[in-house]
């Protein structure tokens, strides 16, 4: 049973502290700044993304057939070239905000909540198919191609490939170091599981000063400590070296690998809470 407030509610300070404190419509629109795309449509003239393709690779909505219920509800399919491999056959989408160029608009201040999330699915036929996902102040794109991990200091990069290890491998790359790898200890690789949607979530909590990554409903923990059970893996061991505080971030999604590989993106999100002096 849900909770209903007949007189309404909001998420603002009260009227003594905020001029709109008596707004009762729910979330005040400016408190959080969020880019969220459910990919129920994909019109690059209006949706804020810029697309890069190489060697005939494609980025397009599916289903392409009304009978393909597996890809219903708005899915963006990235497909590598049918003739070229690696970056020469790669494709990517990158946030541009309608400007035609890469645009970083999400500040990772370290003093406010910051979060991102992506839901994607490898097909059962995927072999060498490397998905790259980046939240950084630069694009993963080199021109209009994707070349895999790049040494961009202010970024969080996630990369996985079901063909890159046994049975697969995925890594986290923050600033100038690989800071995490998922799934090696128990022999299961959640993020490379084929033919199943996976959700990767990142959240930074400014009060507890920790970051957590979660795959589907499982938090990925460092071994042993109580805190890892509470909060997930603590990546704060080397703040200066691994956490991109103080930069404005943008979303990038790239795909490369063998020919005619594809991956389906259900949705992607990135957001932060505005400091109280800004809403």
């Amino acid at each position: 049973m849900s909770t209903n407030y007949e007189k309404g509610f909001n998420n603002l300070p009260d009227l003594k502290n905020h001029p709109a404190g008596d707004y009762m419509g729910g979330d005040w629109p400016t408190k959080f700044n969020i880019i969220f795309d459910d990919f129920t449509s994909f019109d690059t003239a209006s949706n804020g993304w810029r697309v890069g393709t190489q060697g005939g690779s494609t980025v397009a909505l599916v289903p392409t057939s009304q009978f393909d219920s597996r890809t219903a509800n708005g899915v963006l399919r990235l497909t590598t070239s049918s003739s070229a491999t690696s970056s020469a056959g790669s494709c990517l989408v990158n946030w541009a905000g309608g400007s035609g160029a890469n645009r970083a608009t999400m500040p990772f201040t370290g003093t406010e909540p910051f979060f991102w999330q992506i839901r994607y699915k490898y097909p059962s036929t995927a072999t060498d198919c490397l998905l790259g996902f980046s939240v950084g102040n630069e694009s993963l794109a080199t021109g209009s191609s994707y070349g895999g991990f790049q040494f961009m200091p202010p970024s969080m990069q996630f990369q996985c490939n079901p063909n890159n290890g046994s049975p697969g491998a995925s890594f986290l790359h923050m600033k100038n170091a690989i800071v995490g790898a998922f799934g090696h200890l128990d022999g299961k690789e959640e993020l490379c599981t084929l033919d199943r949607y996976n959700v990767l979530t990142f959240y930074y909590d400014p009060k507890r000063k920790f970051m957590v990554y979660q795959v589907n409903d499982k938090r990925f923990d460092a071994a042993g400590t109580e805190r890892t059970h509470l909060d997930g893996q603590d990546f704060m061991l080397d703040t200066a070296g691994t956490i991109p505080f103080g930069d404005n971030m943008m979303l990038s999604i790239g795909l490369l690998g063998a020919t005619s590989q594809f991956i389906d993106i259900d949705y992607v999100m990135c957001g932060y809470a505005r400091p109280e002096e800004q809403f």
Partner: protein
Amino acid sequence: MASNEGNVIFGRVSAVGEVNNKIKGNAGVSFPNGISNFVKKDHPLSKIGILDKSKYIVWHDDFNNYVTSHWEKTVVEAGSGDHSVGVINGAGGLLEIATDNANNDRVLLQYKGNASQAVGSFIMDPKKKTYMAMRFKCDNWQTCALHVGLMRRKTDFNGLLSQGGTIQGLGIDPLFTGSEAAMFAFMGTGSGLPLNCVFNTALSGFIPTAGDITNDEFIEMIFVYDPNRNVGRSIPSPKNIDTFLGNVSAALPAGQINTNQTYLHKPVYFKDSARGWTGCSASVGGSDLPFTPGTDTVNPATWPDGVNLMPTMMIRNSTAAISKLTVDYLTIVQER
């Protein structure tokens, strides 16, 4: 209920099963079964926990994305012909509107959706509560005329006070007071002094002096219209003299003369990084209802009666140099 110890999750175990119900450190409240605000609690949609989207008309743009076809643009560029409008890198999603580089060059944007021309999305209803919030900056407050807010459709424009139309929101026009920059909050119609709030010492309001606003410093403003705000409403005394809205203390910022803003029907609040929310003075009719209680008659000289208004952003330079208006967000919320 909410706890100051942590994030309370109602009705379900947390993602980490052994830590049921409370995760330390976060002060938020989670409603995993959903939350709603339907006036009637037995409304069928309240059971699934979604908000009543029909309760308020909400227009909001965070400017992470600028869609050319959603805005009607009118440009005067006598200079080198290189005005620009677009999202730039920067925290929060920023729309930069830059004029060309000749004196009096201008850029006017009015929301149209995908229509062929700008269309009025809002009509000010004197019986309904309305909020308008904005965060923006200007690269030279002293030399630009600008407007952020609501306005009727215009494709020929000069200074703000030459618009001959209804303007609601923030306006600055240095031509109005000669060499002295002034900031106005228009809440009326006409071209004379349709001002409910004036940020200018000559008109006994609050002027943002050089120490208050610097070029390229973001400020926030919220305009509130509430026909019920002075009817039986009492706001407790503030606990922070300088920043609380209901403040009537002598310690108000210099230039602010107003009484308790919370009792006004049409208060305007200004905020910068150092000051916090500050109620702005009402020099003309800020506490007056635009209609006589018990009637539906409004004074069209001070109220945009039946005028279609649309989200609008405008900048005009007054020197032979590029001027820039950068908007973080514009939000307009009207009670249905």
